[in-house]
């Protein structure tokens, strides 16, 4: 694989997005976007195949950017970021294939968003990460604001202010961490690997920890930071909802594993149960909220939030199984819940409604659509044989290891998800055919071929999980070992002090 693969992967979409804005031809934007995302997909798959699963960073690219503060433009992939990277590379072409044509600025925004997300995933330097992390939001702001639903203005402001507040506070945290390193070792650096030599706790470090956590908790979102989500997901155009739910939320999870765990190991261990309980509350709360929704998209928004809760739980349980499960579930959730947003987008395009009561009997009209929808939905609720099962199973296993009670609670909470999704499926796809549903047409050949790969991935991940897990497990083991190392040191230190007495 050529050396600067990651750089190409990040900047190709960004440059293409900028060029699209100036391209005069009407249909060219979408096609260009599609081909660019296909190239990114191919690079992503190739990286996945070449990745040897040894635990360290691979495909590293490092070049000095601001030497006086030790900031490097550093990129790399390891087991933690591999599946997130793969997800955002593989699923992205979908947004260019399905749904009706939008203006070229829309596709330019999507491409910019992809580039920024890939940048945030691959960055090994905190400042570079932060820059991409913030840029990610700009296209979301514009796509929701310009192409969103009737209540888009409030939704845009809410998501933007909420996430910017979180990430600006994280900036203080980032600078604080680098400053601690500077004080201890006398050099400025924002390189992640070097900074993880620190293990901060106590004093302002506790605040810095919370700043990082809140920034990621808002992006994921974890209860009680989820209040922007129903508005934003519902009002956003389907492609943006898909990007938000399938990929962007995952970068929050990824950031938590990547940055919070190594820098604030002690703090994280002492707060883990708190956040785990927040995750469970979020799952139950959003699950119950989803049951009552009339709007399918709004229901999916809550469903997505509810299922992000379990991913967060997996991190907070802090063992190899649960963390592997979380990383696996990142990909699984994207292929299931994320894709459901696109299906709902298609439905809305054909019927101009998302109201569950107005629908019914779609399965008789559109058997292929119903099948695809069912597969994604069943993966979402974690049916064995689909990708969702493996992830959720590993997470619950890990959580039971952490605490029997919390593990069982997590397991039972999943039943709520089954309830509302199956009930919605019954009302929309079966029962009596409504007048509106009569207008529905099944997927076209193009759409079938667009979604088919996703269906294959869902089953492939469910039946051959080891193929994916083997690549990420070494890195997870390292991460967990690193997490407990400072705590063990402290235990040893305490023991000595006890014997001294």
């Amino acid at each position, binding site marked *: 694989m050529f050396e600067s693969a990651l750089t190409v992967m990040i900047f190709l979409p960004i440059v293409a997005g900028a060029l699209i804005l100036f391209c005069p031809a009407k249909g060219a934007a979408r096609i260009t976007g599609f081909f660019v995302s296909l190239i990114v997909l191919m690079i992503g798959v190739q990286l996945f195949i070449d990745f040897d699963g040894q635990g360290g960073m691979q495909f590293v690219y490092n070049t000095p950017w*601001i030497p*006086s*503060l030790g900031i490097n433009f550093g990129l790399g992939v390891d087991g933690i970021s591999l599946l997130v990277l793969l997800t955002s590379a593989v699923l992205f072409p979908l947004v260019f294939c399905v749904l009706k044509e939008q203006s070229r600025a829309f596709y330019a925004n999507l491409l910019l968003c992809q580039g920024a997300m890939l940048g945030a995933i691959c960055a090994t330097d905190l*400042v570079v990460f*932060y*820059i991409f992390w*913030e*840029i990610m939001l*700009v296209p979301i*702001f*514009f796509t929701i*604001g*310009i192409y969103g639903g009737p209540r*888009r*203005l409030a939704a*845009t*402001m809410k998501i*933007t*202010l909420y996430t*910017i*507040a979180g990430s*600006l*506070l994280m*900036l*203080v945290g980032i*600078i*604080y961490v*680098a*400053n601690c390193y*500077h004080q201890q070792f006398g050099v400025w650096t924002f390189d992640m690997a070097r900074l993880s030599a620190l293990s901060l706790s106590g004093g*302002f470090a506790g605040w810095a920890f919370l700043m990082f956590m809140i920034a990621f908790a808002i992006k994921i979102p974890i209860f009680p930071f989820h209040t922007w989500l129903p508005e934003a997901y519902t009002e956003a155009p389907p492609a943006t909802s898909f990007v938000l739910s399938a990929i962007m939320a995952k970068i929050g999870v990824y950031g938590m594993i990547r940055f919070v765990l190594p820098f604030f190991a002690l703090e994280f261990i002492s707060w883990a149960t708190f956040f785990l309980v927040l995750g469970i509350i979020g799952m139950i709360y959003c699950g119950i909220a989803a049951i009552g929704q009339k709007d399918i998209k709004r229901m999916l928004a809550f469903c997505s939030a509810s299922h992000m809760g379990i991913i967060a739980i997996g991190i907070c349980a802090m063992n190899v199984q649960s963390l592997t499960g979380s990383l696996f579930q990142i990909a699984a959730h994207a292929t299931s819940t994320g894709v459901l947003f696109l299906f709902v987008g298609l439905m809305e395009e054909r019927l101009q409604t998302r109201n569950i009561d107005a629908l019914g009997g779609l399965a008789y009209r559109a058997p292929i659509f119903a099948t695809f929808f069912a597969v994604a939905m069943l993966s979402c609720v974690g049916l064995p044989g689909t990708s969702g099962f493996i992830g959720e199973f590993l997470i619950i296993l890990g959580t039971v290891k952490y605490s029997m009670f919390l593990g069982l609670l997590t397991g039972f909470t999943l039943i709520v998800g089954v309830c509302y999704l199956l009930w919605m499926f019954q009302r929309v796809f079966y029962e009596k055919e409504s007048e509106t549903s009569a207008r529905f047409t099944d997927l076209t050949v193009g759409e079938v071929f667009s979604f088919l790969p996703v269906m294959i991935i869902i089953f492939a991940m469910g039946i051959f999980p080891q193929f994916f897990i083997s690549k990420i497990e070494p890195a997870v083991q390292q991460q967990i070992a690193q997490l407990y190392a400072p705590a063990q040191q402290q235990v040893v230190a305490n023991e000595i002090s006890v014997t001294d007495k």
Partner: protein
Amino acid sequence: MHDLVSFLPLVITCTGALLLMLYAVCPKAEQEKASLMSMGFFAVAFFAQLLVVCTVSRPLFPETFNGMLGVSGFTNAACLIVYACGFFTTLSSHTYFRENHFATVEFYSLLLFSAVGMVLLSMARELITAFIALEIMSLAIYVLVGFNRASSRSTEAIFKYLILGAFSGAFFCMGTAMIYGAAGSTRFDSIAEWLAFNPATTPLMLGGAFFLLITIFFKISAFPFHAWVLDVYDGSSNPITGFMATALKTAVFAMIANFLALSGNLHDSWITGLFWIAVFTMFGGNLIAIGQDNVKRMIAASGIVHSGYLLIALVAINSEYFSGAVIAYYLAAYSVATLGMFAALSWLGGEGEKRVTFDDFKGLAKRQPLAAATIAVFLLSMAGIPPTAGFMGKFYIITSAISAGQIALGVLGIISSIISMWYYLRLIVSMYFHDAEEDFIVDGSSLASISTVALAVAVFAIGLFPLVL
């Protein structure tokens, strides 16, 4: 010889100002030609300054002017910013005065004169020189603010600014006298020497520094001397507002940074005061900006907030390693965005500054996509969204605050920039998310539009390649 070379840009600007004054007497003088000439002078001065930065290795000239003036990397950067601001201001003025007909040739001459004052102020190493420079600058600016004699708002603006400015000038004199009484010298280095062996809390020194800081806070519109900003910025013509907001602030900050950085002792005794002034300036500015419906007044209020960020950098100054790079970088980043904003306003405003409220900008993106995009870039830079210059500036300031142990100030700065998101985004929302109500017809290509695009590019260039540091 070296001294003369480093003095060259100033000579060019001064000559330009005098020549334009002479040209004004000529019966066939046209203001459009004058604007092109002053553009030329600013450009030449800028490149001469660049030449000085690149070639002169030992640029201090303590002997030549008996220590009244001095040059360092920091003052060079400040001068570059001032010349660039002057250049882009003349570009916007050129466009602005096609529609608004109250400019005469003297306008450009005064612009050059005020730039002379600014450059001298940033080079000043002595309080009396600083006072003279401050007055050269201020007198020219007073006239420029009130240039539109037919407009009552402009008259109101000059009246407010002149009265308050006269007071602050008097305070500066008073402060200088008291400091001289205490330290026996008006030279920065002698004062610093005196301070090294004497406490900075001597009544005379304390009082002198107090009066001096009042003037400075007035000029940079820091709390509690910020109340004039809105009316004065609103009353003066767009290009001049841009010039005042950027070049003037740069010069005054350069002077005070030079002064405080040398006198570490004085800085230490004022640090708590500066801390609170920075905090109140940021939050006071934000509160004012949130309530504005007029874009010009919003930018004016946000200028107060940016002064607050710069004050954070002043608090964090470490006299041992002062390079001024953080302040210079932030000033450059802020100037580029603000000048760009006012260039765009001068271009879109048309006759009598028609388009000034948030509602006037509704749907601009649909009619004038390029203008809307550049304005959005400037706003995002002011808000500090990466990868713009504004973000890097804020990043440096917060880093310097935290590494100086002022974590609380860093956090407050960030909270203030979260609040400021609201009013920057509001204008973007107006431009992009609403339907157009008018056609936004502006006459063809103009110099202001070119400068808008150039500045938008500069926002990214400065942000991605922060060479200063």
